[in-house]
């Protein structure tokens, strides 16, 4: 169990941001993910790509944090993409019936 969430942000262009997440996204760490994502929810950003290939565990607070990104994309017409989901994490999205609601790419490649 990794309680120390880390991030690697790549600004591919002014309006195309890639954020790779390292660690477990839980009620105790999701605030940090939100802190990283929230400033990106502007009309200037067109594409946010969250890479989850280094996330082994995610609970409902982590999913809810990502739902904010989904809501942002629906409001602004921006793209909010998740990728690299491990089986455990994808399973939780599926159980929450959110796997078809999010734009989920199979690989972590952009």
């Amino acid at each position, binding site marked *: *169990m990794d309680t120390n969430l880390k991030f690697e942000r790549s600004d591919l262009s002014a309006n195309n941001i890639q954020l790779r997440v390292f660690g477990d996204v*839980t*009620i105790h760490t999701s605030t940090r993910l939100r802190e990283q994502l929230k400033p990106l929810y502007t009309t200037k950003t067109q594409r946010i790509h969250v890479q989850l290939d280094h996330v082994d565990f995610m609970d*409902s*607070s982590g999913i*809810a944090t990502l739902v904010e990104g*989904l809501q942002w994309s629906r409001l602004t017409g921006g793209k909010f993409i998740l990728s690299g989901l491990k089986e455990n994490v994808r*399973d939780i999205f599926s*159980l*929450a019936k959110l796997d078809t609601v999010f734009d989920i790419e199979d690989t972590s490649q952009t």
Partner: protein
Amino acid sequence: MAVTVNQRGDNIGNPERAMPGKYQRGKSCRISLQLDSNSDCVEVLRSIVSVMTARAGMDELRSNRVAVGVDELFANIAAHAYGGKPGRIEVDACLEERGETRFLIFDFRDYAKVCWRGDIEKIANQPLDVEHLCPGGLGLRLIHSVSDNCEHHELEDGNRWQLIFNVCNGEKDGHES
């Protein structure tokens, strides 16, 4: 962080050492804990889940589902029943045989005011409203999805929650272990 681990049944000892052991039919396997409703304790709880699911012979995916259910329930009690304030949560995990079927059961006991009188089944079966999704509601949905049964009982001095996982038959969505 106050954690008390009390084991009854066979000698599990250190959870890490107990990992390779598998549940033996007819042999009791039970772990009891007293936890503070403090974030640090979740790590301990997760270790206990690992021990119990390994003993039950569950694969990684199903073990993760149990971890999610237990994690969500602990978080709900800490955040909503105790309102984020310190409180005691007692957890009793056991593998139980009922006829030919084995169950992994997690009992949660808290001493907070009763703040839940809803119907989990009803909440879980409501259409998902992504635009107004709240973390608490999503947590209950997940608890309902991963467990075979989730019950809440009001007590005079708190609450009792019971999460039951059917070890033998896979999850409700047909996943086979």
